[in-house]
Each structure stands twice: as structure tokens, then as C-alpha cells.
């Protein structure tokens, strides 16, 4: 999350997630750790899934090490692979595989078969829903892992260079979020060992409200109406059920409710952000204005500023929307002198509903500047929801003390 915020505000990338290998290797241990946290609860309550908990613990630590190897050895091509060194990579690789073989060796040699009956769960119980979502998380992990390391395997085996981009991950992950979100909504309402769905009517009403709300919000916004309606409805369903729990149960199992609420908020923010975002890329010179369907961008002037280690070109833009409301944005180009590096500093106007983001670049040998203006809804909610998720995880550490 911190990396995302840094890339968004400091580097001016204009987004929060690009499925870059470095981002992926930080996501993978998070997935296994989340699965592990849930399985530990099952282990605590039912004394089941012992082996799975051990495997998840090993996997989580191994994947963290694997991340270090992938991004610091130079084996992968990424914008993040700075400070890499193949010679150091060999040491990390040996350490990584020694770690894997040793830990799995110890596990397989000393592991004793559990009483099978403890692993037989009733189909409608909390542990079953946790187990099913564990499978989903392992599926997400497999997709991310394959997408990240497959280019290396292909390069070594057939000398063919490919890069796996966002469409691969989105096509394989996003549809499976629907059952994942539904199980997240229903799971906490179930009891351990054997359960039945209580308050069915309330659940059905919440689900219908979620579907109707989604349909009315997005009916004119996307071409893929059916898919997005189902997906956003599932996210709204989780949002409303956790919100309800937050008010009804108050401080009972607050860590779980806060995390699930944060996750629903995260999915909703990401989905609305991707559906409603708009972008304009154009070349513009001083004194010129650019009209687009939602308003006008006016390039007013540029100023120069000298600092001890860089010179800066600060541009002044006035962006007028359809209602006549004007905002002033001042993106910057910095030319650092030791060594000579040109960087673009975006100007971002953040509100609770949307971010207005403007970044500019030089066009060589030309009086024109290249600008990228983006309107990105609910950006701030993405950061808030991740904070809530982290807060929930942190609370679970001190659960017994609360």
C-alpha cells in the first residue's frame, strides 16, 4: 500500500496497481498470510487443518524470500528492479531453496497423519466457508505466481521473451471474486461445526437491495452490464452485511468485521475507479486551451524556479468543468543536475469523491508540452479501505486483550 501511494503521488504514474512483478511478489505472501490467519482460527476452534497451517506458514515466509530473489537478482524485467546484482542473486537463490527443501523435509519427515474425522466438515459451517475461501485465495495465488514466473521459465526453456500484463490477471481473477465475496458475506454468519442460515429474509432483502442499487448506479456506465452488476452487487452485499454487523455486534469480533468491511470498501472503490475513470492525453502549448466532452483545459503560463540541486519548470493550468467550476493545477518538470535526470511531478487535487490528476512532459524540440489529465473517482477510499484492512489484521493480534 505504501509503495502504491508513493508511486501515485510521488512518481505520477496515475494509478495504484499495475500487476508489475514487484507488486505481485508483495501480493503473494499477503494472500497466503491471509489464508493462514483464517486457518489458524479453524485450528484453534476445531483442531483441524494442522498440516495446511504448517504448509501455509512455510509458503508465506518462502514467498517473501522469493520476492527478494525475483526483484533484487535481475532475473525479471521490471521498472522496480533497481539495485540488482546477479552475483548476489545466486546467494539468495541458494538460501531460498535451502530454506524450502529444509522446511518441507522437516515437515514431511516429522509429520504424522491426523485423525481424519477432524478434517471432515459439515457442508454448512463456518469452517467450510473459510476452507472454500482458502481455495479461492490459493487460486488467486497460483494465477499471480504463474503470471510472474512463467516469463522466466519460457525465456530459459525456449529463449522466447514475453511479458504478462494486466488483462491476464484481470480475466482470471476478477470473475472468481464473485463467489469469494459471497462466501465472505455468508461465512461469518454461520456457526462452527454445524450451522443453518439464520435470518434468511434479511439476507435476501440485503441481496436484492444490493442488486437494485448496483443496477441503478451502473446501468449507463458500462457495456458489460450483467457481469459488473453481479460483481458489484456481491461487493455491496458484503459491504451491507458487514456494516450491519458493525452496528449490531458492536465490539464482538471487531477485527474480522473491520477487515471484511475494509475489503468490501476496497473492491467497491477499485471497481468504481476502473469504471468511472477518465483520461485525456494531448499536446498543448502556452496560451492554448483544449476542449473535451466534460470541460476545458487551459494552459495559462510557465514559471522557472532554481533550487540547489534542480531546476524546475512549473506550469499553471486552469481546468473548467461543464458547470463552470474552475480548478488550478500546477504540474512540474524537474531537471536534477547530479546526475542529470528529468522527472515529472504530478499535481493532484484530492477530494472524498475523486482525484484530479495532471502530469506533464517535455516534447523534444517543440514548444508543446505533453499533458495527461485524469479524473479518478474514489482514490482516497482505496487508501482508507486498505488502512481498515490492516487495522483489522492488527486488531486480531490483540484480540484477547480487547
Amino acid at each position, binding site marked *: 500500500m505504501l509503495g502504491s501511494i508513493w508511486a501515485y503521488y510521488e512518481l505520477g504514474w496515475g494509478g495504484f496497481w499495475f500487476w508489475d512483478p514487484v507488486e505481485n511478489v508483495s501480493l503473494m505472501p499477503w494472500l497466503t498470510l491471509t489464508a493462514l490467519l483464517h486457518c489458524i482460527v479453524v485450528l484453534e476452534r476445531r483442531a483441524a487443518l494442522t498440516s495446511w497451517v504448517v504448509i501455509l506458514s512455510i509458503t508465506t515466509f518462502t514467498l517473501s524470500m522469493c520476492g527478494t*530473489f525475483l526483484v533484487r*537478482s*535481475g*532475473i*525479471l*524485467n521490471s*521498472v522496480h*528492479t533497481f539495485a*540488482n546484482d*546477479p552475483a548476489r*542473486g*545466486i546467494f539468495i*537463490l541458494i538460501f531460498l*531453496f535451502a530454506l*524450502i*527443501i529444509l522446511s*518441507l*523435509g522437516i515437515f*514431511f*519427515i516429522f*509429520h504424522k497423519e491426523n485423525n481424519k474425522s477432524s478434517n471432515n466438515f459439515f457442508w454448512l459451517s463456518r469452517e467450510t466457508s473459510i476452507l472454500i475461501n482458502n481455495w479461492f485465495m490459493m487460486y488467486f495465488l497460483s494465477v499471480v505466481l504463474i503470471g510472474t514466473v512463467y516469463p*522466466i*521459465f519460457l*525465456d*530459459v*526453456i525456449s529463449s522466447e521473451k514475453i511479458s504478462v500484463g494486466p488483462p491476464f490477471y484481470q480475466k482470471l481473477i476478477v470473475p472468481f471474486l464473485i463467489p469469494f465475496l459471497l462466501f465472505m458475506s455468508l461465512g461469518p454468519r454461520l456457526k462452527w461445526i454445524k450451522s443453518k442460515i439464520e435470518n434468511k429474509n434479511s439476507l435476501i432483502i440485503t441481496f436484492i437491495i444490493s442488486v437494485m442499487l448496483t443496477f441503478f448506479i451502473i446501468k449507463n456506465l458500462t457495456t458489460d452490464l450483467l457481469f459488473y452488476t453481479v460483481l458489484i452487487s456481491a461487493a455491496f452485499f458484503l459491504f451491507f452485511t458487514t456494516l450491519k454487523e458493525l452496528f449490531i455486534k458492536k465490539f464482538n469480533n471487531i477485527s474480522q468485521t473491520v477487515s471484511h468491511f475494509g475489503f468490501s470498501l476496497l473492491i467497491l472503490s477499485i471497481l468504481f475507479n476502473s469504471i468511472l475513470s477518465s483520461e485525456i492525453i494531448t499536446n498543448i502549448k502556452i496560451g492554448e486551451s483544449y476542449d473535451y466532452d466534460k470541460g476545458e483545459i487551459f494552459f495559462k503560463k510557465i514559471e522557472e524556479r532554481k533550487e540547489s540541486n534542480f531546476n524546475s519548470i512549473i506550469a499553471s493550468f486552469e481546468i473548467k468543468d461543464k458547470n463552470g467550476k474552475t480548478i488550478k493545477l500546477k504540474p512540474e518538470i524537474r531537471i536534477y543536475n547530479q546526475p542529470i535526470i528529468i522527472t515529472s511531478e504530478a499535481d493532484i487535487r484530492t477530494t472524498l469523491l475523486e482525484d484530479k490528476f495532471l502530469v506533464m512532459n517535455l516534447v523534444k524540440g517543440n514548444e508543446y508540452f505533453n499533458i495527461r489529465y485524469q479524473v479518478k473517482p474514489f482514490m482516497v477510499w482505496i487508501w482508507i479501505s486498505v488502512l481498515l484492512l490492516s487495522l483489522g489484521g492488527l486488531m486480531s493480534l490483540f484480540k484477547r486483550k480487547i
Partner: protein
Amino acid sequence: MKNKFSLFVVVIFFSFCFIIFYKGLNTPNNYTPKVSERKNIPTFKAKDFYSDNLM
């Protein structure tokens, strides 16, 4: 017995991965920009100040 077989399979699988990563390290994918710099080294002739020999 089952555990030992599983361990054997795991060791084979990870050994394969190790070889792939090891070979991958030999051809690192570090990003290096394609910059072609052609420096023209100036050539000139001059006389040595003391001997009048051409340099």
C-alpha cells in the same frame, strides 16, 4: 512411505525450479537503454616545439 514419496516429488520439482532460476540468472533482464554514442575523436597534426618533427 507416502511422506517420503511426497518429499521426493517435492525435491525433484524444486530442483527443476532451481535449475531454471539459476539459468535465468545467467541471462539477466536488467533494463538497459539503447544509447548509441558515437564520439568523433579529433585528429590533428602538429610540429614538436623543439625538434620540428611531425606528431
